[in-house]
């Protein structure tokens, strides 16, 4: 980021501050301000993922007493919620088939947790759990019989679910993903892979100091499909029959053109 655009961003922050800053704890003197490099991500035909920049400042009150430790930022990006089924293969009659399955209900389709330091260095386990910092402390409720409940982090299905999501870059933890450019100005890169679903993504930014959460702000961006892709994806779901007829017509036309072009007799 060049110096000019940085200054422009800072200027934008200053303007946005009254709008986006929120007070997590009224007693705290710090205010957290954040914004994103883009609030709309368009999926076009050559979309292979996108990198967004989250930036902001920690604003101190005139009367703020200097903190003992440094500031820490934890940014949690949560994609649109979706329900998924995780299946486990078992060997039956010599071949591997899907046997047991578990449903995960309304869990984040995308989850990225970025921080200035490893989470355990920022706050104690109890605080992390309460603030839902990190994938292990994020609620991933499963359908268990008639009930929906979160399970222990070392549950086999939960671990497999998280692992598969991480393999596809849909879930990620980056302990050094947020950097302080100055003692109060922070910046982070959020990577969203091509596979991430369209919809609304929330960015929840928390400020920690001396092992406690002292301020919080939220931001959001939206992933949308535009142009031809949007048309195709939308038509396929909303007008399945027409879409099928059009696709079949396209096949027939292609076959017909080929027979004209390559006609030898």
């Amino acid at each position, binding site marked *: 980021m060049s110096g000019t655009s940085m200054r422009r961003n800072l200027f934008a922050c200053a303007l946005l501050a009254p709008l986006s800053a929120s007070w997590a704890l009224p007693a705290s003197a710090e205010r957290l301000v954040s914004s994103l490099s883009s609030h709309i991500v368009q*999926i*076009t*035909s*050559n*979309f*292979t993922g996108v990198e967004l920049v989250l930036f902001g400042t920690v604003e101190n009150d005139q009367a703020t007493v200097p903190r003992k430790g440094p500031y820490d930022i934890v940014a949690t990006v949560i994609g649109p919620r*979706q*329900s*998924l*089924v*995780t*299946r*486990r*293969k*078992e*060997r039956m009659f*010599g*071949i*591997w*088939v*899907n046997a047991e*399955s578990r*449903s995960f209900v309304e869990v984040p*389709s995308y989850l990225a947790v970025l921080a200035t330091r490893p989470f355990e260095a920022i706050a104690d386990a109890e605080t992390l759990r309460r603030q839902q910092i990190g994938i292990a402390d994020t609620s991933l409720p499963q359908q268990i019989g008639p009930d929906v409940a979160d399970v222990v982090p070392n549950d086999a*299905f939960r671990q*497999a*679910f998280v*692992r*598969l*999501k991480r393999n596809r870059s849909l879930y990620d933890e980056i302990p050094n993903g947020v950097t302080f450019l100055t003692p109060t100005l922070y910046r982070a890169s959020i990577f969203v892979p*091509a*596979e991430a679903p369209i919809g609304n993504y929330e960015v929840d930014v928390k400020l920690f100091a001396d092992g406690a959460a002292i301020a919080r702000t939220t931001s959001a961006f939206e992933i949308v*499909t535009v142009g031809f*892709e949007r048309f*195709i*994806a939308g038509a*396929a*779901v909303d007008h*399945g*029959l027409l*879409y*099928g*007829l*059009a*696709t*079949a017509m*396209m*096949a*027939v036309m*292609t*076959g*017909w053109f*080929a*027979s004209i072009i*390559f006609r030898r*007799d």
Partner: protein
Amino acid sequence: MEIYLPIADLPVNVFLVFAMGLAVGFISGMFGIGGGFLMTPLLIFLGISPAVAVATVSTHIAASSFSGAIAYWRRRALDLALALMLLAGGIVGTGSGVWLFTALRGLGQLDITIGLSYVLLLGSVGAMMVTEGVGAILRARQGKPVELRRPGSHTWVHGLPLKVRFKQSKIYVSAIPVCAIGFIMGFIGAIMGIGGGFLLVPMLIYFLRVPTNVVIGTSMVLTLVTMASATILHAATNHLVDAVLALILMVGGVTGAQFGARAGQKMRGERLRLLLGILVLAVGLRFAYDLIVAPDDLYTIRAIGESR
């Protein structure tokens, strides 16, 4: 050049997919088949979900069989009456196939069914073709006359009632096996994403004694209609047909088929059949390998209530 596939929901290299279309088209032109049994597995190995692969390949086969059918129609080398009767069974078969496809997808057993069907069908048909092909070549080497099929010979199929005369094919057979063959082809085509030319042609020759000069053209008409209706039904019920992927594949496919057809004319018939048999068997074994060998990951995840 990467392009984002709207339904398969992943980026792919256009040239790679086009090259796959060309290669499969070449093979399909060479052997006079649709090539679905090669294209569907290739797409699955590329990372496209089996469900989307099966649905999309049906569109690709519809295109290639239509250009083939036109060529045979110009030479009057197809039996339209026989094709229409096959279609009566074929449409019902496709409908049932898409219904089972949807039901299995809901149960999470679709991928395994596709895999098992490929192993059983391609394994057995491929083994039969290879044995027969090797036998034919050995007989030719030893100078023995190639065993001729007698078109007049009767089997139990000819004892069935409801007989119909097909003038173009010069056959007089019961409507029951004709509709049954149509039904089977439509059914497995919808589930496995294959046109089934490599199955249908031998079935028409062995069971119905359809003369070889009209058999490929006739089978292409059946393939065209079952695959076009499979496209429409898969799109209407499961929203799985990726039009962008299908377009790239079919443009490559119809182009490759032209060159394949020329290459195929230069080869001897029995050698061609043996090669096709080896190819069919290899694809079947590849699927068997995937089923038997422990998967890298025992777990899979899939979204519920979404198009994918």
